[in-house]
């Protein structure tokens, strides 16, 4: 058997909740234990709360902001009871994330989705899942093997293109990725393809030369298609800590990110770093990855996310 059998389809909520269950159990379990039997919100409780949020990778800065807001509400007597703490926090985090809830809309034809990120975050897997979903929506899809550097990256994408039954454009390993993108755009135009999804080599945001190479790809793409035909997705690994902020900052500065994908949320990692990123950059989160199956790539929904989190 070539591929793992697909398990029975589950409802959206149950899969998301299941995927995020480790996260939920962790935070809620601790939060409920924290406030259990407590009436007053005191310094000690707030300190423990701070610890809880930090262990969810929310980051010192964001946590201090959230705690300050709770403290403010306590001092203005808007929040008195420890049991209300959970809802207040939930609401505060929702407010930060709500702005991020803008699903990807494919408005132009051909539309180019550039998938970028550091090494090992799950770019190729995300592309595979996204291609299958777009195909299922009735769109014609072409995958462009823009990672010409990593060994067997092209083969990996090719397998996904076969799984999703979509078109595939490649060149030899170590060839110029800009040429691959150029070919893919030309081919999509002549074949009337709806969406091109371009893989790119994983690169650390600190590597100046590789970032220059990436900029070149975008220059070609923008010249051939125009800015409004392009979605730039930065893929982030939920297991990553505060370095994700630096990744967003630098990729955004260099090529301009229009959407985020957060992968590997099916582990125990809490992905809390998104909250801080949403707060600072206001870049929409398009998808989250909660498993290895094709339909485990989910449109990001802030309310569901917060609900599943708490």
């Amino acid at each position, binding site marked *: 058997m*070539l591929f*793992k059998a697909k398990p029975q389809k589950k409802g959206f909520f149950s899969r998301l909740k299941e995927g995020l269950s*480790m996260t939920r159990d962790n935070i809620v379990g601790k939060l409920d234990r924290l406030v259990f039997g407590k009436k007053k919100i005191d310094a000690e409780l707030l300190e423990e709360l701070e*610890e809880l949020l*930090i*262990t*969810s*990778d929310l*980051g*010192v800065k964001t946590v201090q902001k959230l705690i300050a807001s709770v403290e403010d509400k306590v001092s203005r007597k808007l929040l008195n009871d420890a049991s209300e703490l959970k809802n207040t926090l939930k609401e505060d985090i929702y407010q930060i994330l709500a702005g991020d809830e803008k699903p990807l809309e494919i408005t132009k034809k051909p539309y180019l989705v550039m998938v970028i990120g*550091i*090494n*090992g*975050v*799950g770019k*190729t897997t995300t592309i*595979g899942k996204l291609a299958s979903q777009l195909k299922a929506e009735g769109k014609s899809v072409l995958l462009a093997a823009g990672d010409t*550097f*990593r*060994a*067997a*990256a092209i*083969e*990996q994408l*090719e*397998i*996904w293109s076969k799984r999703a039954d979509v078109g595939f454009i490649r060149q030899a*390993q170590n060839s110029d990725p800009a040429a691959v993108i150029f070919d893919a755009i030309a081919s999509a135009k002549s074949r009337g393809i709806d969406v091109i999804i371009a893989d790119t080599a994983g690169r*650390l*945001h*600190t*590597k100046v030369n590789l970032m220059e190479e990436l900029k070149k790809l975008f220059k070609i793409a923008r010249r051939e298609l125009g800015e409004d035909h392009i979605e730039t997705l930065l893929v982030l*690994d939920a*297991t*990553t*800590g*505060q*370095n*994700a902020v*630096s990744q967003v900052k630098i990729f955004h500065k260099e090529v301009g990110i229009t959407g985020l994908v957060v992968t*590997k949320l*099916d*582990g*125990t*990692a*809490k992905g809390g*770093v998104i909250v801080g990123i949403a707060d600072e950059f206001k870049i929409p989160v398009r998808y989250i990855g909660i498993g290895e199956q094709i339909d485990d790539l989910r449109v990001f929904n802030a309310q569901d996310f917060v609900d599943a989190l708490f």
Partner: protein
Amino acid sequence: MFDNLSDKLHGVFKKLKGHGKLTESNIKATLREVKLALLEADVNFKVVKSFIDEISQKALGEEVILSLTPAQQIIKIINEELIHIMGDEDSDLNLKAVPPVGIMLVGLQGSGKTTTCGKLANYLRKHGKSPLLVPADVYRPAAIEQLKTLGKQLDIPVFDSNIKQNPVKICKAAKDFALKNAYDVCIIDTAGRLHIDEKLMAELKSIKKKVGPTEVLFVADAMTGQEAVNIAKTFDDILDITGVILTKMDGDARGGAALSIKHITGKPIKFIGVGEKLNQLEKFHPDRMASQILGMGDMLSLIEKAQNVFDEKRAMALEKKIRKNQFTIGDFKDQLQQMMKLGSLESIVKMMPGVSKKMKNNAQDFKDGEKDIKKTIAIICSMTTEERNRCEILNGSRRKRIAKGSGTTVTDVNKVIKQYLETRKVMQKFSKLGIKGLSRLKRSL
């Protein structure tokens, strides 16, 4: 000659003195800062807490070194402790077994196992081994091709497996193959998996049982956040890992995961991956990691400069010599050179907190002092070893030669010898105070 200079320096140290011992109140603010720095570096919260608690328990009551403030002293202690925690164990690979020796790489998806396998094979070949790469990742599309491509690039053989095979069987067969073909190390690339995936974790366990590797290396992304502890702990609980390889160390992550993982598993960090090229695998350096995690490079280098020079060991050796009346001109030169190691006297004083502006501006005095020291060193360098050990043989003609050799005058040479004899006298006096007194003297020189 040194009077002017040492007077000035003495004044500086006097200002910094009087902190006495580390107390809860004089380290509180610093500890909070360190705590935040560690959290921002992604060290796990619980690890930070227990680490800071331990440190403050240890540090309380410790005497503040004369040249440091309490804040600097506590950061020095923390830095040393970080280095100690992360690097005390032997980080060499254990290949002591009947070949073929197994090395297994395990970890989450995307941590960099396959690339690291290639790097490790390259590293072992450089050290005279003949490695065999074993692809046992049958799940990720094209993972086997990836390892085969890397093998081709390196010209290192890769065991022929395919995705229809069972990973446990692949590893067993690869070991038999290695035995027959005289490969002495099997490097096994396992599939990335979540630590909570019981089925796949069980698979790793049976590979380990079948192959009996000497090394089970946990490959971790240096950017991992708070979860690093849980992930590492689960892998260690199930597989009893033997070491850690940190990847993606060439990015700008502060790498707190290193401390978290070490703290929770107690297993040594053996290598770091510092690039995408196959020779970019390095031995782990705990001192570099410590300063990266702490993120206080400037402060640390100042502290290091201030105390490196007169460290206890050297002082002890010196004291012995003085006691035996063996303090030679050579030793005298060493002392001066150690002092020069601090950098220019001016720059050191500028770095020190609590030094008056007026003093900092007094650059000419420092420059003159430095010139004198340099001249003295030049003169001593022009002496033969015998002359350095037994200054009484320095007669007129020898002194003339030395002056010529160092580009100075006989008067200068005479001055240096007199200076040395005086220093020796003073030192002998102080040696009666014991080691503590001596190091105090040296520090406040």
